[in-house]
């Protein structure tokens, strides 16, 4: 929950720095140390403040007649201050200098728009013509010629970041109502020009931007009281015709009928922006206020009225807002905590949560969303491009080292690669194990594969999917479409593995799997590789014998025919012997059904689906459950041998559930009658047996006690068999 805290006055402002648009300050920049800011007014003066002490530490001004045209910034590496006055004259000084006339001076050949100082990259100078130089380069030859990049466009806003080791500068320009975005990478000396998508009847008022994972997120405040988000990937190497940047609505600045007319805004964190503007309710006088909005839940988190008026400018450093309020520069501290829905609706008590370490990195998940939205935008952009550019693009992809690419970017680039290249790349990606957000990456990879399967029905990377699912700890929610596609392709082995490994399969899918498993013919399953470890220990003997027998009897028959006969024969036999001695399904099917029995479910959600199971399949399934139940009861500890074999509780629960769901059908169906009566007899016999056991419980306990006494002897000779 974001909140505004106490406020205080940093300093009073002179006559020039008043309220109203056009008034105010030239800029506020961070000072050389934390808690320091550099204030440049619209006249001749720059002042350094220590914020927490509300105290000026230094003040410098240029001569009468001169005027500072570019905000003073601090070079964080050398702790020097840099300013430009009268558009062209560069001044550099240190803390101990008093008179600006006597400090270093350089006259440049073109007008400066702004200087951006980067913590590790040194200052960068942006000229009004769009040219960019680092200060070092500029000082080598101050009179060097500066190119004009933007002809008669006017720069509206600029910002600089460090991306890895290289400074990146972004600025926006306007010409005849059209807005353009330029991204300049200094080291690579590459400049990209984008056109901002037009918006009917409104135009951008203010910009802000941040960089994350090689993607610049540009936020624009429009005159229609909305904030839009524009994503600009840094990795583009094409130098082709200008691209149009599409934007998406991030936030609508209206709350219960009143609309905030924003003038400037800053980004606080992933989910919060602060907007300074006037709040106008219909029929009421507008009031200026500072507001914090949650973009995730689209809510106004907090606001503070500023009755004395502001200049419309807002800065934010080190969790403090700075703005002019009346005739003073006011500082407000704020708190911005991770947003949760509970916090957004005001239901979170107090954030007294201790230092909990969570396993899921939600930041990376957030980025996934970003990638998806980027993908959708990108696909639009791609469509507009010709086939030729696509090819050239692929070439560049091949050259770029995959290390430098984020996963999302890589997947994006691979969208159109050939199948083998695609799988190779993904395998390579997977082999880079132990990435910090590996889980999320795998999710992305699977999603990419599945998307490809969906678009290309012939494509189905069975082994690759199997490999991923077998080796990684995935969950259903991480790749929701995977099982749907597997169901469609009837890839029972993959489904089996998924059922065994995913902890969170919805009941609907579990049911769909069950139905597929029951409906698939045994002959088809015989050819398929299924993990049999759950049945091998209790099923194989009967089957071995059987196979031998059938081979002898039916020698010379065609295999499929034989299969059919065999099936009917078995059902007949089970009817005859009727004590559940033979397994009604083949080992493969049994293994698949065991996987279903093993998966987690909730009765309430499963029951409605089970009602839809066709009667024949329901009977077959019940028969198999009955068989398992009898098998279990044979053993004294009522457990089946083997790995991942179903437990007696699972068997009983499924049996009850199936009977509940299919009760009427079972009662009506003639072939179920005998099965039910057998089941009934068996259960009744068991109940009797256990009640008898209860009667002799006392005697049994006595036996056990005797046994225990023997155990406590200090010496005995026993027989141990090792197999």
């Amino acid at each position, binding site marked *: 929950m974001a909140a505004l805290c106490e406020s205080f006055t940093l300093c009073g402002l002179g006559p020039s720095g008043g309220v109203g648009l056009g008034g105010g300050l030239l800029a506020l920049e961070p000072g050389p140390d934390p808690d320091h800011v550099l204030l440049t007014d619209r006249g001749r003066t720059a002042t350094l403040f220590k914020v927490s002490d509300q105290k000026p530490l230094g003040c410098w001004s240029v001569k009468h007649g001169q005027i500072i045209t570019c905000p003073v910034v601090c070079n964080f590496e050398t702790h020097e201050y840099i300013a430009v006055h009268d558009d062209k004259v560069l001044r550099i000084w240190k803390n101990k200098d008093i008179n600006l006339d006597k400090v270093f001076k350089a006259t440049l050949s073109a007008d400066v728009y702004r200087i951006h100082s980067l913590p590790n990259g040194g200052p960068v100078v942006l000229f009004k013509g769009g040219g960019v130089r680092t200060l070092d380069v500029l000082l080598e030859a101050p009179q060097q010629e500066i190119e004009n990049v933007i002809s008669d466009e006017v720069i509206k806003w600029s910002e600089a970041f460090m991306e890895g080791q290289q400074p990146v500068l972004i600025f926006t320009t306007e010409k005849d109502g059209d807005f353009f975005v330029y991204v300049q990478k200094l080291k690579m000396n590459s400049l990209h020009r984008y056109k901002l998508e037009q918006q009917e009847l409104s135009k951008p008022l203010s910009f802000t931007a941040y960089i994350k994972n090689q993607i610049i997120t540009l936020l624009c405040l429009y005159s229609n009281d909305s904030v839009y988000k524009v994503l600009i990937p840094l990795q583009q190497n094409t130098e082709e015709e200008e691209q149009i940047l599409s934007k998406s609505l991030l936030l609508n600045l209206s709350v219960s009928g009143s609309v905030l007319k924003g003038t400037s805004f800053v980004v606080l964190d992933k989910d919060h922006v602060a907007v300074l503007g006037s709040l106008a309710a219909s029929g009421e006088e507008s009031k200026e206020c500072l507001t914090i909005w949650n973009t995730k839940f689209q809510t106004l988190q907090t606001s503070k009225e500023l009755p004395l008026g502001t200049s419309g400018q807002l800065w934010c450093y080190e969790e403090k807002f700075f703005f002019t309020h009346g005739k003073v520069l006011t500082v407000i501290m704020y708190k911005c*905590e991770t947003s949760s829905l509970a916090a957004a609706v005001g239901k979170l008590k107090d954030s007294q949560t*201790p*230092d909990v370490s969570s396993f899921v990195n939600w930041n990376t998940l957030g980025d996934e969303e970003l990638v998806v939205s980027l993908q959708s935008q990108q696909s639009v952009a791609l469509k507009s491009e010709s086939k030729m550019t696509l090819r050239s693009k692929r070439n560049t992809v091949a050259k770029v080292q995959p290390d430098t690419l984020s996963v999302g970017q890589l997947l994006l680039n691979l969208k159109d690669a050939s199948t083998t290249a695609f799988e190779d790349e993904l395998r390579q990606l997977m082999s880079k194990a132990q990435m910090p957000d590996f889980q999320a990456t795998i999710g992305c990879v699977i999603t990419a594969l599945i998307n490809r399967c969906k678009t290309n029905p012939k494509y189905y990377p069975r082994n690759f999917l199997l490999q991923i699912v077998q080796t990684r700890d995935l969950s259903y929610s991480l790749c929701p479409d995977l099982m749907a596609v597997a169901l469609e392709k009837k890839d029972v082995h993959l489904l089996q593995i998924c059922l065994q490994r995913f902890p969170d399969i919805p009941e609907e899918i579990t049911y769909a799997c069950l139905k597929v498993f029951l409906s698939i013919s045994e002959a088809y399953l015989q050819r398929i590789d299924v993990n049999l470890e759950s049945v091998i*220990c209790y099923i194989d003997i009967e089957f071995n014998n059987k196979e031998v027998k059938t081979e002898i009897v039916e020698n010379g028959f065609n295999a499929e025919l034989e299969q059919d006969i065999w099936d009917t024969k078995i059902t007949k036999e089970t009817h005859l012997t009727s004590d559940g001695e033979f397994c009604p399904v083949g080992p493969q099917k049994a293994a698949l059904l065991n996987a279903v029995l093993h998966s987690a479910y909730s009765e309430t959600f499963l029951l409605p689906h089970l009602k839809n199971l066709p009667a024949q399949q329901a009977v077959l399934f019940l028969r198999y459950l009955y068989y398992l139940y009898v098998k279990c009861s044979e053993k004294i500890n009522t457990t089946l041998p083997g*790995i991942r074999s179903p437990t007696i509780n699972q068997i009983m629960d499924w049996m009850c559930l199936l009977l509940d769901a299919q009760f009427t059908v079972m009662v009506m169906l003639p072939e179920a009658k005998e099965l039910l009566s057998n089941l009934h007899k068996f259960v009744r016999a068991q109940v009797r047996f256990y009640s008898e056991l209860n009667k002799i419980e006392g005697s049994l306990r006595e036996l056990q006690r005797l046994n225990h006494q023997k155990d406590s002897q200090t010496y*005995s000779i026993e*027989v*141990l*068999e090792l*197999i």
Partner: protein
Amino acid sequence: MGEFEVHRVRFFGLVPAGVRCLACQPRGSRLALARTDGAVEVYNFAANYFQEKVIPGHEARSVEALCWAAGDRLFGAGLSGDITEYDLALLCVARSVDGCGGPIWSMAANSSGTQLAIGCEDGSVKLFQVVPGGIQFERNLDRRKGRILCLSWHPSDTHIAAGSIDFFRVFDVCSGQTVQRIMVNYHVLKVRRECIVWSIAFLSSGTVITSDSFGRVQFWDWQRGTLTESHTVSTSAVLSLAVSEKEDSIIVGTSTGATYQFQLLPVKMGSLEKRWVRTKPFQHHTHDVRAVAHSSTALISGGLDAQLVIRPLMEKMQKKGYDAALRKFTFPHRRLVSCARKARLLLFQFSQHLELWRLGSTDETGKDGEVLPLCRMPEHLVQLKSKGPEHIYCSCVSPCGGWVAYSTASRFHLYRVQYEGDGVSIKKVPKVPKLLLPAYQLQFSSDSGSLFVASARGSVHVLQLLEPGGCKHLHTFRPPSGSPEAVYLLASSADGHWLAAVGGDWAIHIYDLKCFKHHCTVPTYSCAVTALAIHPVTNNLVITYSDQQLFEFSIPEKQYTAWSRKVQNCGLHRVWLERDSPITHITFNPKNPSHILLHDIYMFCVLDKSLPLPDNSALLMNQSTLKQLPETARQRQLHAFKICKKFQPLLFADLLDENCLVMVERPIMDIKTQLPLPIQQKKFGT
């Protein structure tokens, strides 16, 4: 595979001594532990917490405090009033200095390990300088009445906090003056009880933490003399306290056997204000937890119930692995039992005596799990008491049962035992050769004709046994490149040709007994050897390491065998590698050369080299599954490891003949009954 007749022995009345104190090596990976009988042990974290070194105790040498100083030098101090330095290579006391202040209750080294402070019965705190080759008395700090029970240096070495009865004091090290004296007593209106400060810790922030007999853990600002926080964790005393290196977590141990972790946590998320919060309670012990230690990844506690418990902090764990498991050690990581196969005798080693037993017999046979009726009961033949205050280092009985040998720190004894009908006569062998003592391991050759004595500096002496009761020194083997460490394990081949010896540097040397020369060295592996044995038929040396790896080395060919390479290629089963106690004994079945028999505390395993190795998806402990399967289905499920967990805790297992095993168990319950009653705690209104 087959049926065995198992002699299940539970009459080995070993009661391990309680844990008295613990000391983690600063910035190192070793843990020193002292027991109430004066024994000192060193565990190596890097070698899967293997009990690397044991210095047996001494009647007159109790250890009340242990500390590491000057890197890897270990000092102990006790109620005898002496400060003792231990020689970890020779596993004995290196030197001893009188503290001159009566019984010593506590000792602490400063952060740089250059000075030791001791707290004495007479109320003095004395400083000693750690110098090469010993320690030197430096000076006394301000002396007042009342014994000093615990001590802690400020991390900057400028102050010392000392806990006493009813109060603790803070000394300025430079001036030696008491700069603060804080009463911790609370006044009960009628009865005034004294409050003992059992343990104290000085943090770099100036906070002093005390734990006392009222069950409180208190945090003091020593400069202002004020109590900042107080937590009552128990109704009985809080006996021990340890702080993590980062000073953000402490562990305390109480006399009810519970331990608690306290953590310094922000009051709110992201807040700068922090407070000590009791976070995790554990109840691993039944008796007093006299010693606790806090390593960077684990809470370690030792109790009078002789258990050492290492409880890893899961938040410090990067991955699930060997370190992430809770482990409890009650028994030593070496064997205290030796067996005379032919004579069916067992020799049990206690701290100050030996017991020789003859096993019983039966003439019946039966099916799996059956208990057979005995036709002869086991017989206690001899009890040999070691004279003097020293505890026994090692002992052995010869395969024929005719010889028994043991060694203490300064004496070596060899006895000739003769059996006439039901009577036993035992005679001490006079004039044993003067050897470099102590002996760390004794081993008779399989024909009972010679005795191998593991000794200091990597050397092994060979003694020839002479009838009717004498011996002479034949040869001394030394590793060709020399070694400072003592030999701690020996194995000899059945044909009397080879001898393998492992020293504290974990190098395995193989000597040729026929021509008395060094044969070869097994390639070094960076982990402690826990057991080794030479196969009677193939002369392959089987070695187990504390990281649960298993190697087979062919002595004649001087290289690892093909099977060993196969094991390394396939890797051992995950469950095998995650076991937490080392293999302590290996033996073979001469009738079935592909079998290797090995055991640890919790399992007995027959390793059949002729069967395939299990992969990670297979069930390692598959005996119960196999028993349920019909004969035909078993074949496919068989794998090399045949594990039996029926006998626990297993101190010793050996093969007497082809299908006859002996298993020596020591049920924990039997030990518990030997311990004093734990503090009575009310449960459910009883």
